[in-house]
Each structure stands twice: as C-alpha cells, then as structure tokens.
C-alpha cells in the first residue's frame, strides 16, 4: 500500500481486501511503510478488515506504521486492537509457520 488511506481509496482497499479474504486467506500483513496519511474512513476500513480476519480465525499485522498514523489509531482507541510490527520482515516472522 502507498499514499493515503482516505475516502476515495478506502472503497478500493476494502473491495480488494474482501476479494483476498473471500479467497480464503487468513493471515494478512498490511505494509503501511509508504502510507503517509489516514483519516477516519481509512481507520474504519482497517477495522472492517480486522473484523473479517478475526472472524476467520486468522491474524492481521500492520507493519511500518508511521508515528502520525499510530497517533490516529491511539486516539481512535485501537492501539490494542491491532498487532503492529516495525517492519515487514519482523511482521512476517511473527505469523505462525
């Protein structure tokens, strides 16, 4: 992912993730290293994906989350709802083998 996770991009993001989850994937890594911005619509999209992953018994990890985006997640009361890893490599290592 790159750029912004906001209103216009959110719909495409949720559609894409829904297709992936409908395809049976349960372990999802979202690399947000190149995502510079997120708003409340983007947060809601992440919540939707996290709900879907949780209901399938899978695991969602967010990697490379910038400080401003971590601040938005914190104000949204979601810090403990997501597993965050500093990098994609560390995130991949924390999935069940």
């Amino acid at each position, binding site marked *: 992912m790159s750029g912004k996770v906001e209103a216009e991009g959110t719909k495409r993001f949720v559609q894409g993730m829904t297709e992936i989850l409908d395809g049976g994937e349960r372990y999802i890594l979202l690399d947000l290293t190149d995502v510079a911005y997120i708003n409340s*619509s983007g947060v809601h999209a992440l919540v939707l994906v996290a709900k879907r992953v949780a209901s399938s018994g899978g695991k969602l990890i967010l990697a490379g989350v910038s*400080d401003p985006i971590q601040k938005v997640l914190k104000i949204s009361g979601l810090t403990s709802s997501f597993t965050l890893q500093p990098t994609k490599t560390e995130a991949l290592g924390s999935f069940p083998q």
Partner: protein
Amino acid sequence: MTDQTTLTLKNDISEVERVMSIVAGLCARNSIPPETEYDLNLAMDEMIANVAKHAYPEGGEHLFTVQITLSPEEFIATIEDDGMEFDPTRHPTPNLDAPLEERKQGGLGIHLVRQIMSSVNYQRLAGKNVVTLRKKLT
C-alpha cells in the same frame, strides 16, 4: 505575518483534496512541521467531508465557505454552511473501549478533530452552521 485564504466549496467529497492541497501550500510557506501539518490536514479533511456527505441530505449542489488564517501563533479555520443544523461539539464520542467486533462507523472523524485541535467552537448563526477550528502553533 498572517496568511489568509477564503474558499467557496461545493458539497462534493472531491473538494477535500482541494482543501488539503491549499493547507499543504500554507504549511510549506510557513514552515509548519510535518506532524502539525498532518493534524491540520486531518481536521480539514474530516470537517469538509462531513459537510459534503451530511449537511445537505436533500442532495443537489450547494456552496459553503472555508476561511483559513495562519499566523505564527495559530491556525484558525472557519467553516460556514447553510445545511442541516449540526453541532460537532455536541456529537457523541464513539465507544472507544468497544471491542473490535462491536465497532461501528460514525462519529470517529469528529472525535479525531476534537482531540487533535486546540479547540472546536460551534455557532448557529442566521441559519448557518459556523464551526471554528483552532490549533495553537507555539
């Protein structure tokens, strides 16, 4: 020095990008740090999107205004629309303790704005919603 911009916007979500681009220009001209620029962009994004999506439930094209003033001490944005009465200062805070599976959409944007700005004020004046956002910069 004070940098001031007044915009007339349509009740269209695409206007958010226009406002964010103007905020980016203001921030660049005034050496605003990136973390503050993020907050200003987020606040304007949420408030403009709110007007565009909810102020005119009857549809059709409507115009509303945004005045942005940036001084070395403070960012001030005043958003005026003649849409449905809506006081963001009284909007209920979403349940932030709710587990993920009980999370619902709605109210989060306003909550974010109230948290990241120094103040949010509301007046209903002559049939208009007048919302003033302030963020201290010093």
